[in-house]
């Protein structure tokens, strides 16, 4: 037998070959990750003459602290509840409690997140970092809509283009095209589509309704901004997941479909008993990848709305960047990324647990 060359006999060779990739990962993923954890425990600023100090979990508490404030309505001298012109109870301004009020240390410096009435009283949920809370809710909303819709849509497209028809390749390319274009470019283009005055979407809707549709400033309106970004994000990446589904579909043996056909299965039964079970592993992959991508929503926000209007499109990653670089509060930004990491990690683990092989 031929003697192994020195190259294949030594472990060092393997490490040498791996080192470029390994080094880059170390430099751009592992080290920043460790740094983020380290920074998040200090009061480090992006540029500052002062040395950073260890502050423990202060960044986290500043970010995550919420408090409940129960407020009694204002009463006049005779003990009657004062009402405003709409007939609602009048309440004292919350500032009275949050600004240097020694009786209410738990809501010190907090702002009202949302409130509801409870009998005659008003219950206010207070947050010390209101923008982060909004970003958190927006991100979760985004994930909750985008993940299932994008996954399902991608599956439908994959099923459609998995037919042995002539010219089906063309559709495959068309659906995949948005994935190839940079998200920044796509976002810019969609800004024109969503434009409030003469955007494409408004014109189309206007034409379709014979002029009855009132133009909407899709990105400038609190109620439509996040939804518009969701729609565009779903459109942009659906082709990517379609390809993943497609590869899953093509691992299913055609003979199984023939067997199902012979046994008399309807198209729906074929999907239920042959296709869907055959896509199990693909489904786990798609769900986890979509969720992680959705959580990292940033470019669309940066290009299209910068988090506005009125923080209605703030997201965690956008806030982390904004905080870290815009406001130069690198420790606060780091803390946010760590929170996001833990969030995504726990959701992914949960998804894996829920979709595990039950045998």
């Amino acid at each position, binding site marked *: 037998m031929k003697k192994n060359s020195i190259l294949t006999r030594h472990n060092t060779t393997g490490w040498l070959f791996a080192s470029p990739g390994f080094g880059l990962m170390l430099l751009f993923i592992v080290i920043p990750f460790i740094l983020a954890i380290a920074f998040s425990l200090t009061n480090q600023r992006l540029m500052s003459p002062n040395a950073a100090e260890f502050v423990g979990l202060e960044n986290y508490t500043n970010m995550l602290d919420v408090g409940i404030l129960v407020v009694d309505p204002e009463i006049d001298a005779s003990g009657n509840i004062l009402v405003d012109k709409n007939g609602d109870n009048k309440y004292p301004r919350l500032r009275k409690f949050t600004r240097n009020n020694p009786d209410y240390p738990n809501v010190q410096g907090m702002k009202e997140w949302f409130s509801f009435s409870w009998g005659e009283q008003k219950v206010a949920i207070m947050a010390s970092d209101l923008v982060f809370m909004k970003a958190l809710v927006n991100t979760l909303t985004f994930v909750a809509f985008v993940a299932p819709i994008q996954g399902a849509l991608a599956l439908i497209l994959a099923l459609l283009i998995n037919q042995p028809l002539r010219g089906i390749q063309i559709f495959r390319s068309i659906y995949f095209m948005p994935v190839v274009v940079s998200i920044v470019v796509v976002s810019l283009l969609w800004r024109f589509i969503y434009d409030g005055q003469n955007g494409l979407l408004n014109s189309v809707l206007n034409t379709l309704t014979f002029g009855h549709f009132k133009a909407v400033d899709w990105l400038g309106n609190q109620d439509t901004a996040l939804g518009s970004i969701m729609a565009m994000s779903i459109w942009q990446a659906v082709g990517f997941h379609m390809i993943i589904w497609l590869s899953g579909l093509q691992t299913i*043996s055609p*003979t199984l479909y*023939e067997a199902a056909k*012979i*046994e*008399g299965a309807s198209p729906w039964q074929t999907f239920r008993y042959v296709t869907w079970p*055959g896509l*199990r592993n693909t489904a786990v992959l798609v769900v986890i990848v979509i969720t992680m991508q959705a959580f990292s929503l940033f470019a669309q926000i940066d290009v299209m709305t910068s988090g506005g209007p009125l923080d209605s499109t703030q997201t965690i990653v956008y806030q982390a960047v904004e905080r870290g670089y815009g406001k130069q509060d690198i420790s606060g930004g780091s803390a946010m990324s760590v929170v996001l990491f833990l969030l995504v990690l726990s959701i992914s683990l949960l998804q894996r647990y829920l979709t595990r092989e039950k045998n």
Partner: protein
Amino acid sequence: MADLQLKSIEKNYGSTRIIKGVDIDIKDGEFVVFVGPSGCGKSTLLRMIAGLEDISGGELTIDGKVVNDLQPKDRGIAMVFQSYAIFPHMTVRENVGFGLTVSGVPKDEKVQRVNEAAQILQMEHLLDRRPSQLSGGQRQRVAIGRAIVRNPKVFLFDEPLSNLDAALRMDMRMEISKLHKKLDATMIYVTHDQVEAMTLADKIVVLKDGEVQQIGSPMELFHKPANRFVAGFLGSPSMNFVKVKVVAHDNDSITVSSDVIDEVVLPRHDRDVAVGDTIELGIRPQYLEPHHGELKGSMHGRVSLSERLGTETVLDITLADGNKVIASISEDKVFEVDEEISLCFDIEKVHIF
């Protein structure tokens, strides 16, 4: 259970003709085997019967009804595939009952019919397993179970044993044969293996390049092959063909000879020949009788390989003109390599092509 007729069935892929007008009559309860070399169109023909491929021309009748345009499920057929095609994520029970599940058979009836099928195939103990926990033979049993549970009129098998190892193949072959007797069902079975064809069939259909070569019982085909292809295809080792010249002929006999065969008088076959024609003699290896030395027999050659199997000796013989023949003797006999030998044969057992 039903009759089945194929009338000038054709299949074209684009301009390529794959099945070129096939006529076959299959009677109720018959076990018919389509046999032929790989690529001759056996599977295509079977899949057309199943309804998995469109029929380009001709008429397919099952139980007196033309079914050309019916969906597979409306043809009353069940099919067993070479690759088993059982659903990997379902238990054996679910697999066997699949056809009943999708057609909405009530649960009690389903349980009962699945159990019956399992009992026929002796696999009750496997019902709760998954396909990944089964051997190849057991998987094929499940596939057969899925077929019989629906009580189809016609069973279709596409090389069901080709993925199994030799020993298992023989067991399953016998099992399928027993199953046919038990169910008394019409079965169509595709194989490239002539042993399977000979042992299983009531009727064999030999196909080549999309055309029927001969239809008949195994012994008809073996003893009276219609052409050289059928003769060469059935029997193992396959038939020897030796070219000879016609020296003389009359009403009862033909006299032939060649460089390697001494003049020999054969009984007349129903074939027109003229003196000087070159014809081919077909002699099965079992009917060639080798002798030491050049003298005894009428064919002469030299041993190039001798395989001794104990109960059988197979000789590879190079004739004087360089062509090869094979002789198979049903006893253990010693022949040396390179030994000059002569071969006798029974003139009654010679085929002329």
